[in-house]
């Protein structure tokens, strides 16, 4: 006989459980964790290279980078002298919390000041997966055009920070910065927007300050009692 069973469960509850395990672990080590999401070629790895060069004298950082194939991005990061671990997804379009857990153990990530997770280049799929990060960052390069926030509302509404990259291309394009600001603030009124160019260094100071400010907040936050990783 047929019967109806109420389930009422989050479809991604298993991922969310793993993410909350990661969050506890990084609350204890006071590691700031950020999940970088963007379309391919918008400059995630280049932004990280420049960020790490500027930070490595006074902060420790580590990078986990997801790609469908090749070790290329991890090699580029390692060239800055900081540890990076490549997660090969073998065709999958996003990283999930379990992969981050495994990668943290395999790569002996330890307790860096900042852990950067560079997601697979994709503006849609990574949005659904909590990786235990403190905040998501979405990157939008000037070359992609100024209409993207309303085209990809899920990620722009969830990312606490929008980084505009390749600002050095602004003079060669019709990119309307005000239109981007309007769209982002409509989807997420609290979002911070930073305009950067990894080539000229524009905005890099502001971006690094944003990270350090958030790291300070994390350090001064007492992890909830009775919870351990």
């Amino acid at each position, binding site marked *: 006989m*047929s019967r109806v069973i109420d389930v009422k469960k989050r*479809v*991604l509850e298993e991922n969310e459980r793993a993410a909350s395990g990661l969050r506890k672990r990084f609350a204890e080590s006071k590691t700031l964790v950020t999940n970088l999401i963007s379309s391919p070629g918008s400059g995630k790895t280049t932004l990280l290279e420049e960020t790490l060069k500027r930070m490595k004298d006074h902060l420790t950082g580590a990078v986990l980078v997801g790609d469908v194939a090749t070790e290329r991005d991890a090699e580029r990061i390692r060239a800055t002298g900081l540890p990076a671990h490549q997660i090969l997804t073998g065709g999958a379009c996003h990283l999930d919390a379990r992969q981050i857990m495994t990668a943290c153990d395999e790569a002996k990530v330890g307790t860096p000041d900042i852990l950067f997770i560079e997601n697979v280049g994709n503006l849609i799929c990574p949005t659904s997966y909590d990786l235990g990060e403190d905040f998501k960052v979405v990157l939008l390069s000037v070359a992609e055009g100024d209409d993207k926030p309303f085209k990809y509302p899920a990620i722009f509404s969830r990312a606490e920070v929008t980084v505009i990259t390749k600002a050095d291309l602004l003079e060669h394009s019709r990119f309307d910065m005000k239109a981007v600001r309007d769209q982002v603030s*409509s989807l997420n009124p609290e979002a911070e927007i930073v305009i950067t160019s990894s080539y000229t260094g524009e905005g890099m100071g502001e971006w690094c300050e944003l990270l350090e400010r958030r790291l300070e907040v994390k350090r001064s936050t007492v992890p909830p009692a009775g919870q351990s990783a």
Partner: protein
Amino acid sequence: MHEMGIAANIYELAQQSVSGHGPGRLLKVRVAIGELSAVEPDLLRYAWEATTSVTPDAGCEMEVEWHPARQFCPSCKQDRSRSEGSWLRICTECGGPLRVEGGTELDLLQIEYDSEEDE
């Protein structure tokens, strides 16, 4: 296209939910999908069909409950309507900033199960 993975997650959850209800077959799953969940209902239905087709539950139907996000004006204390898939930059009445609410659902709500055991 992460809908294949999502369909597999739903199937796993559905199977967990019927364990203890004796042998039988899944007839239907009802899911809630929000506009900002980054999941596309048509792709998910297609992925569901593909996922279940190779299982004893082949033919199990998926019913999608769609939850649009709302754009709320905190000054007017009202939702502002927009056409599907488009977004407002500011409140159409007062010109003030809007807030996005809801639309993040991605839940398995209910399943229908054809049990071989009698009550």
